[in-house]
């Protein structure tokens, strides 16, 4: 079904249309959330929360941007909210960060499983670089779509992508 028609039916409260919308976009939400939060449970929770927010906010969606960029913005905001909530409830964050820095210096990639190494490197990218990189490489967003989703200029998208790639290359030099 065409996306515009699907959204129109969803606005009217058509349950079948909602089911199709959820099935169509759930995977995107889960993937992005997982890469940002590095936890299956959190990613599933955020994917559900994001789709619930879409339900509540859809009447206000005017279509100025594409539905996909709007949805991704919601997912990214939900991920930030989830992380803030967790940081507020755990006091161990600083210790985790310290441990992470120490690991960066001592972790050897030789002999490591490639998938594990890539996950490890992605998890250590700063959030802004990681989300820009993932939107481009995993979801195939254009620079314009990334700029719209993140609310940043295209020049910033370009420089973030380049920095992300260079940092990943540096972290994964053992595999190159």
């Amino acid at each position, binding site marked *: 079904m065409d996306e515009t028609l699907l959204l129109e039916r969803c606005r009217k409260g058509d*349950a079948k249309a909602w089911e199709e919308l959820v099935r169509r976009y759930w995977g995107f939400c889960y993937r992005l959330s997982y890469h940002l939060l590095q936890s299956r449970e959190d*990613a599933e929770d955020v994917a559900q929360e994001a*789709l*619930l927010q879409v339900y509540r906010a859809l009447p206000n969606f005017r279509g100025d941007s594409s539905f996909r960029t709007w949805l991704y913005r919601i997912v990214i905001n939900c991920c930030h909210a989830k992380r803030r909530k967790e940081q507020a409830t755990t006091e161990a964050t600083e210790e985790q960060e310290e441990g992470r820095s120490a690991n960066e210096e001592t972790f050897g990639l030789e002999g490591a499983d*490639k998938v594990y190494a890539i996950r490890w490197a992605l998890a250590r990218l700063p959030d802004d670089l990681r989300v820009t990189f993932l939107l481009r490489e995993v979801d195939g967003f*254009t620079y314009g779509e990334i700029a719209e989703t993140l609310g940043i200029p295209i020049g910033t998208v370009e*420089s973030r*992508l380049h920095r992300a790639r260079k940092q990943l*290359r540096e972290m994964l030099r053992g595999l190159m």
Partner: protein
Amino acid sequence: MNCPFELLISRLIDGELTGSDREAIVDHLVRCACCRELLEQFQALRDWVKGVPLPPPETGPEGALLRLAQATGLSDGRLKRIWLTMEKWIRRPVNAFRMALTAGVIVTVVLSLEPRLCDRATQYLHRGFTRFLSHVVAESPAARLPNGS
């Protein structure tokens, strides 16, 4: 390496370069081995990241549909069926555990209050079982046969 063309390499592999910029970087790549290496590494990164599998979700889209149905009341027959199935999976073991726990608590409390009850209960059970067995034996076809036949 800080080649002035570096930034264009990202744009090139992302398909965001056109016209003279594209021609300039393509010409540069022929001459610059460092930039060629960088291009190859960026392309390898792309392939690797795309190949990273995600852990399989526990509930998937069904979980999202259920949450939507619960939070908003949005539901058709199919959603209701999904909900009822999931609810059954959750409700059955929870109810069984609750009943077992209640029975265990009652028995423990009663036996701890009156230890002799425990012995008496065992005696009753033993007596009842013996009576039941003798009844079964008495009613069996072999027992009804006349003596000597």
